[in-house]
C-alpha cells in the first residue's frame, strides 16, 4: 500500500533523500555545539583564557552558520518533497480516475473521490514531511547525542541508555493505546458529521415538525460522547510530558551525584558535566519527537488506504490490444445480450436481448421506471460491458473498437446530464474542439437551442455556471443535445433528453433529426409516448426484457403494455401532467437556484 504511494515520489526523489541528509547534518552540528560550549566554559572561562573563548566562539559561530545552511536546505527540500508528492498523488489519482469505467465510478461516490484527492492528500503531505524531517532527525539526534555522551563518560552515559529504554517503552505504550482510542474517535466523528448533515439537509423537516429541541438534545449527546473519548485519549497523552520531565530530572540528579564524585576524583570536568546535561535534553526530546511522529503516522494510515484504493483500482473497461479505429456505419445488433451491474450476480438487469437496427433508423424506447432502458443503451458505447452475448456496431463486436473511436461515433446524451463552467461555445466544443462558430450554430439550430441562446444578451458567449444552474432544465437539455450533435456521430442516443422540453419543440427537434441527419442512427428513450410515436420502430421494455418491437400501429395492435401507456397518457386516466408544456422557456426560478446547495451535503 505504502509502496504504491511512494512510487509517486518520482522527480522529488532527490529532495526526498536530501532532506534527511541535511537534517542529519543539522543534527551533527547541533551535537557538536555543546562540546564547543563546554570548551568555552572549561578552557576559556575556567582557565581565564580569552583566546580560548574567542577561538571556540568563532568555531561555534562557523558551525552555527553550517547548521543554518543545513536547516535551511533541509526545510526547503522537505517542503519540496512533500508538496511534490502531494502534487503527484493528486495528478496520479486524477489521471487514474479518467481511465475509470462507469462501473469504477459507481464504485466510489463522487464525494468520496473529492475527499480522497483533497483532505486525504493533505494529511499525507504533512505526514510525509514529518517523516522526512523527523524520521531521520530524531533517531540521528538520539544516536549522536548518545555517542557524544559515551565519549565524554561511558559510565555516566549508561544512565542515559537505561532511561532511553524505559522512557521509550513507556512512550510507545502511550502512543499505542492512544492510537486505539483515536480509531474510536474517528468513528464518533463520523457519527457527529452525519448528525450535522442530516440536520442541515433536512432542516425543513426539522422545522416543520418543530423538532429543534429534540435534535439539540440528540446532538448534545453525540458531542458529549466525542468529548469523553477525546478526554480519555488526552488524559493518557497528558502522561507524556511528566514522564519526560521525570526522566530528565531523574537523570540530571543521578548525573549530578555521580558526576560530582567524578569531578572531585578528577575524572570529569565541570564543562563536560554541562555538556552531558545538554545531551540529556537532546536525547529525551528526540524520543518525544519519535513518539509524536508515531502517533501522526498511525493517524494518517486511513488516508493512505483510501488513496491507494483509488490508485490500485483497475479500470474494468480497457482498449483491446489491436483496436479498430473506423466504424463502418450506424447499424446496431444485440445478440443474446444479458447484463448485470454486479458481474457475478445471477440476477440480470437485462435478459436475453435480441434485435437489429439498420443504419439511419430512428428507434424509440419506452417502458416504466426500472425496466432497464438506460442500461440497454449504456452498453452500446461500452459505458458498461455485457455479461453475456455480443453487441455489434457497424458489423463488429463493440469490444474490438478503439474506445475513443467508438465513443466519438456513438454520441450519447445522458439522462443525468451536466454542463460545465465556461461559455456556451466552450461547452459546445466538447463535442468537437475544432468546430467553427457556424458549425456550433447549426448544431444549436438542430437542437432548437438557437432561439433562446440568441435571446441571451451575450448570445453564444454567455457564461454557464458550474452544473449549468443559470439555464433552465429544458435549455440545458437542448444544449446537451447540440453538444452531442457536434460530434457528427453515426449513432445518436438520447436518454430521456427532452423531458423538460415542451412537446412542440420536442417534435421540431425530431423533425430536424429526420431531415438533416438521415444517415445517423437515432435511439430515443422517452417517458412520453408522443416523443416516440413517429419513430421508425419502437422497443417496449419490461423488467429487463423486450416486450415488443414494431411501429406505433403494430404495437397498438399487439402490445398490451404499449397500449396501456398510450391510453393512460392520452385518455386522461392517470398519466403525467406535461409540465414542460406549461410555460414558455424561462431561466430557472429563484426557488430552484436556492435549492442548489441542498444537494451538496457530503
Amino acid at each position, binding site marked *: 500500500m505504502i509502496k504504491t504511494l511512494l512510487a509517486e515520489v518520482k522527480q522529488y526523489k532527490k529532495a526526498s533523500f536530501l532532506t534527511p541528509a541535511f537534517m542529519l547534518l543539522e543534527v551533527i552540528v547541533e551535537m557538536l555545539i555543546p562540546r564547543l560550549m563546554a570548551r568555552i566554559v572549561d578552557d576559556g572561562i575556567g582557565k581565564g583564557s580569552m583566546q580560548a573563548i574567542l577561538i571556540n566562539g568563532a568555531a561555534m559561530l562557523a558551525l552555527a552558520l553550517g547548521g543554518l545552511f543545513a536547516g535551511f536546505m533541509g*526545510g526547503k527540500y522537505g517542503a519540496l518533497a512533500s508538496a511534490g508528492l502531494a502534487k503527484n498523488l493528486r495528478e496520479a489519482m486524477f489521471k487514474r480516475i479518467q481511465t475509470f469505467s462507469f462501473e469504477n465510478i459507481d464504485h466510489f461516490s463522487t464525494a468520496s473521490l473529492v475527499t480522497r484527492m483533497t483532505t486525504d492528500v493533505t494529511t499525507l503531505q504533512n505526514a510525509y514531511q514529518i517523516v522526512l524531517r523527523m524520521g531521520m532527525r530524531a533517531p540521528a539526534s538520539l544516536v549522536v547525542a548518545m555517542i557524544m555522551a559515551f565519549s565524554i563518560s561511558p559510565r555516566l552515559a549508561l544512565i542515559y541508555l537505561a532511561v532511553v529504554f524505559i522512557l521509550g517503552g513507556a512512550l510507545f505504550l502511550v502512543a499505542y493505546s492512544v492510537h486505539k482510542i483515536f480509531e474510536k474517535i474517528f468513528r464518533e466523528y463520523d457519527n457527529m458529521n452525519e*448528525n450535522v448533515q442530516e440536520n442541515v439537509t433536512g432542516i*425543513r423537516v426539522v422545522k416543520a415538525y418543530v423538532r429543534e429541541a429534540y435534535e439539540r438534545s440528540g446532538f448534545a449527546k453525540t458531542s458529549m460522547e466525542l468529548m469523553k473519548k477525546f478526554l480519555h485519549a488526552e488524559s493518557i497523552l497528558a502522561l507524556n510530558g511528566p514522564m519526560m520531565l521525570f526522566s530528565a530530572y531523574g537523570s540530571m540528579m543521578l548525573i549530578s551525584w555521580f558526576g*560530582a564524585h567524578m569531578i572531585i576524583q578528577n575524572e570529569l570536568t*565541570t564543562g563536560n558535566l554541562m555538556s552531558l546535561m545538554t545531551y540529556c535534553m537532546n536525547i529525551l526530546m528526540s524520543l518525544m519527537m519519535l513518539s509524536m511522529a508515531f502517533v501522526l503516522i498511525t493517524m494518517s494510515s486511513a488516508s493512505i488506504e483510501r488513496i491507494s484504493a483509488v490508485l490500485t483500482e483497475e479500470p474494468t473497461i480497457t482498449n483491446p490490444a489491436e483496436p479498430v479505429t473506423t466504424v463502418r456505419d450506424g447499424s446496431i445488433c444485440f445478440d443474446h445480450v444479458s447484463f448485470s451491474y454486479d458481474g457475478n450476480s445471477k440476477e440480470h438487469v437485462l435478459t436475453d436481448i435480441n434485435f437489429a437496427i439498420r443504419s439511419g433508423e430512428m428507434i424509440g424506447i419506452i417502458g416504466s421506471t426500472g425496466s432497464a432502458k438506460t442500461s440497454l443503451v449504456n452498453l452500446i458505447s461500452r459505458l458498461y460491458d455485457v455479461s453475456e452475448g455480443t453487441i455489434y456496431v457497424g458489423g463488429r463486436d463493440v469490444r474490438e473498437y478503439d474506445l475513443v473511436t467508438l465513443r466519438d461515433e456513438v454520441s450519447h446524451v445522458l439522462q443525468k446530464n451536466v454542463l460545465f463552467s465556461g461559455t456556451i461555445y466552450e461547452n459546445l466544443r466538447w463535442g468537437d474542439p475544432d468546430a467553427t462558430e457556424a458549425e456550433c450554430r447549426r448544431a444549436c439550430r438542430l437542437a432548437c437551442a438557437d432561439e433562446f441562446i440568441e435571446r441571451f444578451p451575450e448570445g453564444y458567449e454567455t457564461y454557464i455556471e458550474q452544473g449549468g444552474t443559470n439555464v433552465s432544465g429544458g435549455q440545458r437539455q437542448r444544449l446537451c443535445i447540440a453538444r452531442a450533435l457536434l460530434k457528427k456521430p453515426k449513432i445518436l442516443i438520447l436518454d430521456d433528453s427532452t423531458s423538460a422540453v415542451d412537446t412542440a419543440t420536442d417534435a421540431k427537434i425530431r423533425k430536424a433529426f429526420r431531415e438533416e441527419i438521415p444517415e445517423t442512427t437515432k435511439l430515443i428513450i422517452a417517458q412520453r409516448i408522443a416523443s416516440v410515436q413517429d419513430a421508425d420502430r419502437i422497443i417496449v421494455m419490461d423488467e429487463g426484457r423486450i416486450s415488443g418491437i414494431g411501429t406505433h400501429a403494430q404495437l397498438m395492435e399487439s402490445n398490451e403494455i404499449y397500449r396501456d401507456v398510450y391510453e393512460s397518457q392520452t385518455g386522461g386516466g392517470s398519466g403525467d401532467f406535461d409540465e414542460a408544456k406549461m410555460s414558455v422557456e424561462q431561466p430557472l426560478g429563484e426557488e430552484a437556484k436556492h435549492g442548489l446547495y441542498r444537494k451538496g451535503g457530503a
Partner: protein
Amino acid sequence: MPRVQPRPLKKEDLKKNAAAMKRLFRFLFSHFGFHLIVVAVCIVISVLANTRGTLFLQTLIDDYIQPMIGSKDPDYLPLALAIGKMAAIYGAGILAMLAQNLIMARVTQGTLDLLRRAMFDHMEGLPIRYFDTHPHGDIMSLYTNDIDTLRQMVSQSLPQFLNSLITIVTVLICMIRLSLPLTFVTLFMVFVMMTATKKIAGRSGKYYMAQQKDIASVNSHIEEMMNGQKVIKVFNHEPQSVKEFLARNDRLFDSAYHANKYANVLAPVNAQLGNASFVLSAVIGGLLAIFTGNLSLGALASFLNFNRSFTMPINQVSQQLNFIVMAMAGADRIFTLLDEKQEPDDGYVTLVNATVDENGEVTEVEERTGTWAWKHYHKADNTTTYKLQEGQVVYDGVDFGYNEDKQVLFDISLQAQPGQKIAFVGATGAGKTTIINLINRFYDIEDGKIRIDGINVNKIKKADLRRSMGLVLQDTHLFTGTVADNIRFGKLDASDEEVRKAAKLANADGFIRRLPQGYDTMLTGNGTNLSQGQRQLLAIARAAIYDPPVLVLDEATSSIDTRTEKLVQEGLDALMKGRTSFVIAHRLSTIRNADCIMVMDQGRIIESGNHDDLMAQRGKYYQLYTGKVVNA
C-alpha cells in the same frame, strides 16, 4: 511554472480574526476561569522548578563540587541533602505539569463541546434562508475543521504561550540578577530573532493564504469534473480535463511549497541565532569575568544556561504561530455562525388543548383532548379569546421574493376551507413550492397577509404554527435511528400502538414488518437501505402521527415508480381525508379531484377552480390536460 503572486494579508481580515480571538478568550474565561487560574499556577510551579534546576547547576559547581576538589576526605552529605531538596522541587514540578495537562485536556474538550453545542443550538434556530445560501459542506466543516484548529490552539498553543511567557519573565529576572550587561546582550539577540521571525512568518503567511485559494481552485475543479465524470467519458474529454487540472495542481504545488518552505526555515534560523546569542554572551561574559572579575565562573556558566532557556521559549512560540493564525480564522468562522440572526419569532398566539361544549364555547384544558384551539391574547382590551383550530387558510394579496431584486410571487390570493384539497400545477420555477413555503413561515412575506383560521400567521408563535401543519417533501429526509424513531419524529411520546397505526394508515406497515428487525430496524445515511418508495411511505407515516389539520405535499410521489406510487397514493389519500391539504403534483389523478386547482405561471395564479370549471374555461389547464392547443 507560473509564479504565484500571493494575495497580501488584508488588514481588516486580521482585525476581524483578532476580535474573534478576543471573544474566544472571553468565552474560555467565562466557562473555565477557575480551571485556567489553576493551570496558570501549575505552569508557574513547573517553570519555577525548571528555573531552580538551572540555577542548581551553579550551586552544584560553586558550592558543592569546587570546595571538595582536592579534599582528601570529601563529605558528600551536604551534596546528598542538596540533591534531595532538588528532588522534592522537581517532584513538585512534575506533579504540576501532570495537573496542568489533565486540566487543559478538560478545558480544551469542554470548550469544544460547548462551542459545538452552541453552534448546533444556534444553527437549529436559523432561518431556512441561511441553509439556502450557504454550501452545506461549509457548514459541516465548521464542526470538524474549524473546531479542530481551536483544539490545537487551546490545548497546545495556549499553555505553550503561557509557559513561555512565565519562563521569559522568570529567566529574565534571574539573568538580571546574574549580570545586567549580559542581559542586554541577550535581549539584543532576542530582538534580532523576533525581527527575523516576523519577516519569515510574514512570508509564509502570505503563501499560506495563496495556498488556501489554490486549494479551493483545485477542489472546485475536482468537484466539477467528478460530478461530470460520466459526461467526460462519453465525450472522450479526458485529456482536456487533465490539462486544466494539471495547471491548477501546479499552482497549488507552488504555493504549498513556498508556504511550507518558509515555515520550515523559521526553526533553524532561530536555533542558530540562539547559538550566536550564546557565543556573544560567552565572549562578552568571558571578557567581564577575566578583566573585571565581578562575574564568577559558576555565575557565567549559569547565565549561559539561562541564555539557552531564554531563547528556547521564543523559538517555541514562533513554532505555534501558524496554528494561532489558523485558529484565529477558525474562531472567526465559528463566531460568524453564532452571530447569524435567528429566525424571528415574535408571535404570541399559541396552540392549546381544548374542549368544546354544546354551545360551541371553547375552553382551554390541560390534558390532551385531540381538539386544539388558538389562544389569542388581545393587548388592546386585555382579553383572551379562543378560536377552534380547523385548518382554514387564506392568502390575501401576497408578494414575495427570495431577495430584494427579484420578486417571485405576485399578488397571490386564495382560500382553502377546512378539509379542502388545493392543488398547484405549473412549470418548474412558476412558484408552487414558494407558495407553500410561506404558510409555515419558512420565509416571511413582503406584502399581503396569510391567515390561518382567521389569524394572521405573523401573530402565531412559530412552533405552534408549524405544529398545525404536516409536510411531506419530494426528497424524504430520514434520520439515524430505528424505523419507529423516524415515525415518532412526528410525535415524540407516541406509543408503539400509535406508531403502528400511523404506519398502517400510510400503507407502510406491510414493508416495515418484512424488514429484518421490523420497527426496530436501524436506518442510517438517510435510509439508504430502503427504496425511495419505502422512504416516502415512512415520511407519510411521520406526517400521519403528527395528525395536523393542514397538510402540505410537495411532489411527494414524483420520484417513485408507478407500482409503488399506487401504494403511496393510497396512503396519502387516507392521510388527506378530513384535512386541509396543499398539493403540488403532476400526476393527473392526484390533481383532478382537488376542490380547487391553481394554475401557476411565472409567480402568478393565472387560473383557478375545480377540474370541471377549468375544463369548461378552455384555458391553459384545458390545454395541459388534453394536450390540445386552444386558439385564443
